[in-house]
């Protein structure tokens, strides 16, 4: 089986500083893989590197096809939905406009309509907020909108950068529950970046741990979760 995403010896640079020092990992179709690590480990940089939003060296294959060097928008058009750090919603636009922009690349009207209904079903609150300016949504609602925007692309892979960030535990639970449903029902593979390791390991089937731009540990999520030594030394809980 061809991996959905394969990353090989990935290096990333911000000007002169190198943030990733040869990261290698892969993601199976339909799976949820989590990328864990402390502040500044390079999690966000890894997601940005996959979408060519930072200067990178290394091989990246999406569904067997090399995508390194493609422009961000072209990578996205291959079916990569990126929910960025900070959520990246268009704050001056209404919720409805945000969702319409998200479906900009699609020409299948019926499919877009279906995905709209799917989004409303996952996040009913968004349907009630359609006319509201996105910048005035609550943090949780904005995160829901950010996930919905990625979903409206009709992606096969979603890159999620700390969807739990800054949200109340109940909202986080709700969002993670929906993410599991999206993964199962829409058959979307997920690469989930989290600082909240316990939470991410509940959802994911595979885990990698990053430390200062290098992968220092990987394994099945269930193994990592049950191995206290690993948890203590790498994840700090």
């Amino acid at each position, binding site marked *: 089986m061809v991996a959905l995403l394969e990353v090989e010896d990935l290096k990333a640079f911000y000007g002169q500083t190198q943030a990733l020092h040869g990261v290698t990992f892969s993601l199976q179709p339909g799976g949820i893989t989590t990328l864990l690590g402390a502040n500044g480990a390079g999690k966000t940089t890894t997601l940005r590197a996959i*979408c060519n*939003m930072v200067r990178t060296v290394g091989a990246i294959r999406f569904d067997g096809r090399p995508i390194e060097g493609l*422009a*961000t*928008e072209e990578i*996205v*058009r291959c079916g990569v939905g*990126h929910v*960025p750090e900070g959520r*990246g*919603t*268009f*704050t*001056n*636009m209404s919720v409805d*406009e945000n969702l*319409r*922009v*998200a479906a*900009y*690349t699609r020409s299948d009207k019926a499919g877009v309509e279906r995905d709209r209904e799917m989004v409303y079903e996952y996040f009913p609150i968004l349907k009630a907020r359609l006319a509201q*300016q996105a*910048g*005035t*949504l*609550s*943090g949780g609602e904005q995160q829901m909108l950010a996930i919905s*925007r*990625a979903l409206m*692309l009709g992606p096969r892979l979603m890159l999620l950068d700390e969807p739990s960030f800054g949200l109340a535990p109940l909202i986080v639970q709700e969002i993670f529950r929906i993410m599991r449903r999206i993964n199962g029902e829409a058959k979307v593979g997920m690469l989930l970046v989290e600082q909240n390791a316990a939470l991410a390991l509940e959802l994911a089937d595979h885990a990698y741990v990053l430390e200062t731009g290098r992968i220092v540990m990987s394994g099945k999520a269930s193994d990592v979760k049950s191995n206290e030594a690993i948890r203590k030394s790498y994840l700090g809980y």
Partner: protein
Amino acid sequence: MEQLLQQVASGLANGAIYACLALALVMIFVSTDHINFAQGELSMFSAYLVWQLIQWGLNFWLALAIVAFVSFLIGVMVERVILRPLHSAPVLSIVVVFIGLLAIFHSLAGAIWGHTIKDFPSPFPNIAFAGSGYIGPHQIGMILVTIALLVALFSFFRFTPLGLAMRAAAQNPASARLAGIRVDWMLALGWGLAAAIGAVAGSLVAPVVYLEPNMMASILLYGFAGALVGGIASPGGAVVGGFIVGVLENLIAYLGNLLEKTTGVYIIGNGEKLTVALIIVITVLTLKPSGLFGHVTVKRV
């Protein structure tokens, strides 16, 4: 009283042109954060093209449609070919490029069509109607065309996917890319639209100021004034700003003349119109730096 109304009406008509130019400036500013100093010369060049087509026997509106399209292509080309390589260049180099463009279009027009002033026919029928004592048909036409243009642009940006994508690209390029929007093309498209709007502005003002390579020099300043007063980042604001500048400059000059007539004291008159416009700009920017209709983004953190 009649004179006052006349001044307001002609102020609105001039304002329409300022509004068009302001709209073109805003179009480029929101997508690229640049102020296109060459906008006036581009409009002038387009007006010459329209004139040329009319000389060759075309109807004004057909000529304008063709030239608007050609100008659109010129705008796209300018962005893709000249400005694209300068994306990360310092602002000063970009300003220099704009000034270079200005000089190029200016001398090109002079070289092709000469520097003598040319008559430019008004496209609007010269008929008498109620109120034609206050405002001429061409002036009404300018106002109507400007409003139509604004409505068309508003609908484009609000309702069409492409318009929405252009707004997204202007607002948050990184997020727009993550939605699969080809942001670079959106910038070029913004340039194209600005050039097309400029073509309309140039062709509407040419019958008033006559056709010559310098025709847009002072008008562009008023366009800047309109854009700054209304809010350089707000298309609707720019149009209103253009009208405000047009009316105010007339009114203030009118009041100045009145004052001179009654008291003999000369403070301000027709000669100081441009100064008035600049004073309006400075006043508005001091009181409200984002312009009268500048965006206030509501953000919740």
